[in-house]
């Protein structure tokens, strides 16, 4: 065969490689963007789980409610975006507070076990999601119709809303971690995580701290939900996958830690992205739970969790 043909074959192979590596970068970026979103949900879930030990399944419903509240203000009532988002987040936080006030706190006062709290949480999830589906219908709703503006960073293309997702997470998460370390409220939250009885004996009103944790955790779920809904829209069932990723991120990152679930969420989302590339999108959930089982078997304390001294485990 003549030489020009060989050249074109070579170019084709080179182009294919270029495409492939471009694709890899884009998928890694998508994983990172998703990681930003789910890190917010996971951090909120971890705040609540670490301090109260309640496996707050209703967090998923509160996530969904956040997106729908924004839909009501932005699309149904036609208010401007910042106002709609702020109102939606405030109400989401309030929803978290109500969950604690009306469900978990009374259960705790009666000395109910954590299993009872978990079942109540599941019930609350089902009730809330069904209520949302009843009012808004099961079909997908869009917050902003039309095509988004895009930004190019070398081989990576991000839409404007994806860019906003990254910025929000990259500002909020370090800030929250810093507040946990440096402020009195942060110390109270970490103290409650370590030992609720001692926190009370130190003169802290733990009920108020718990309310604060529920408000903050729920608002974070709301932020994550609104940012996601602005990008890909919503249906009443968006909460459950978000909750599952948050819970798995907490376990692989390290239960009891606050940095762990953030790292866990990024790891999970980037891995999912790579699976879409190499295998198929259908295997995403299998990978999530495969990773969960791997950690439960081989590193149950998670990435950042420390094996505790015996005395610590007792307290």
């Amino acid at each position, binding site marked *: 065969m003549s030489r020009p043909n060989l050249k074109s074959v070579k170019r084709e192979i080179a182009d294919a490689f270029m495409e492939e590596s471009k694709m890899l970068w884009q998928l890694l970026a998508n994983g990172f963007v998703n990681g930003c979103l789910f890190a917010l949900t996971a951090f909120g879930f971890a705040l609540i789980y670490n301090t109260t030990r309640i496996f707050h399944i209703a967090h998923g419903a509160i996530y969904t409610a956040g997106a729908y509240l924004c839909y009501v203000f932005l699309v149904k009532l036609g208010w401007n975006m910042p106002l709609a988002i702020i109102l939606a987040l405030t109400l989401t936080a309030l929803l978290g507070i109500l969950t604690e006030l009306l469900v978990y706190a009374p259960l705790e006062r009666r000395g109910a076990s954590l299993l009872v709290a978990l079942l109540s949480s599941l019930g609350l999830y089902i009730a809330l999601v069904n209520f949302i589906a009843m009012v808004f219908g099961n079909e997908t709703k869009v917050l902003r119709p039309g095509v988004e503006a895009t930004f190019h960073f070398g081989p990576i293309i991000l839409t404007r809303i994806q860019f906003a997702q990254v910025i929000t997470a990259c500002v909020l998460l370090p800030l929250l971690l810093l507040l946990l370390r440096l402020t*009195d409220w942060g*110390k*109270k939250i*970490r*103290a409650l*995580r*370590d*030992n609720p*009885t*001692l*926190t*009370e*004996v*130190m*003169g*802290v*009103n*733990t009920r108020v701290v718990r309310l604060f944790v529920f408000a903050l955790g729920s608002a974070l779920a709301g932020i994550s939900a609104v940012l996601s809904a602005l990008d890909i829209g919503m249906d009443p069932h968006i909460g459950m996958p978000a909750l599952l990723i948050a819970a798995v991120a907490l376990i692989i990152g390290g239960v*009891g830690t606050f940095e762990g679930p953030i790292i866990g969420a990024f790891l999970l989302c980037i891995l999912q992205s790579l699976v879409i590339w190499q295998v198929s999108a259908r295997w995403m959930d299998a990978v999530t739970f495969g990773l969960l089982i791997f950690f439960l078997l081989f590193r149950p304390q998670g990435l950042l969790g420390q094996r*505790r*001294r015996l*005395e*610590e485990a*007792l*307290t």
Partner: protein
Amino acid sequence: MQEAITNMAQTSKIGLQVERLRAGYGKKEILRGLSLKVGQGEIVALIGPNGAGKSTLLKVIAGLLRPWEGSVWLDGTEITALPVHQRVQKGLAYFIQGGEVFPSLTVRENLEMGALMFPKAKRQEAIEGVLSLFPALKENWHRRAGLLSGGQRQALALGMVLLKRPKVLLLDEPSAGLAPKLAHEILAKVRELNEHLGITVLLVEQRVREALQVAHRAVALVNGTFAAETNEPASWLVEGALDAFFFGRMERAAAS
């Protein structure tokens, strides 16, 4: 005997008082109508066999366990219905059995938790005061409290409780698990604090001998009720002096 307590209370001001307390876990009754008064600035040692209700009594006073009946008074005000944190604000501090600390917080952060009620500017000063009592804590300033040795942890726990500047201090086995020398030191510290700051102390201790040495008065509990008391705790140090209500009552309880 019950009269003796009342008489004592009339002669000095009462720091802490419980009246006809009944409390327990589930359906199991632990405290059976217990009354007790502790005068201001007094150290009272509570002694009695395991299961007599000593720790339960402290839990009820601290507010961690709701009594079925009866009342708790601090400095003449009733606190029976108050939540734990409000009792602390009123000057009641509770050293939990085992010397609990926040394991993943550093020693500094633990002490800051103890000093929460001070305005930020005054916290350091208050913490310095505690560090002068337990200088070893300073060496571990940035260490996670969960990594401290048993004795250091106990000292930290006591330091955190003292930062509350309590009027009344409930101590549940402050020397448990410590070497005899350290145990002695901790109890000597308790006596020192009582003398210098006038803190009222209700002390539960497994080391009966040491407890009786630091206490002004001792009360024996058996089966959740008052069994005996003495204004000269040292008199109970005599061989066999305690047998009567430790073993005698227990046998009777077992028989009934």
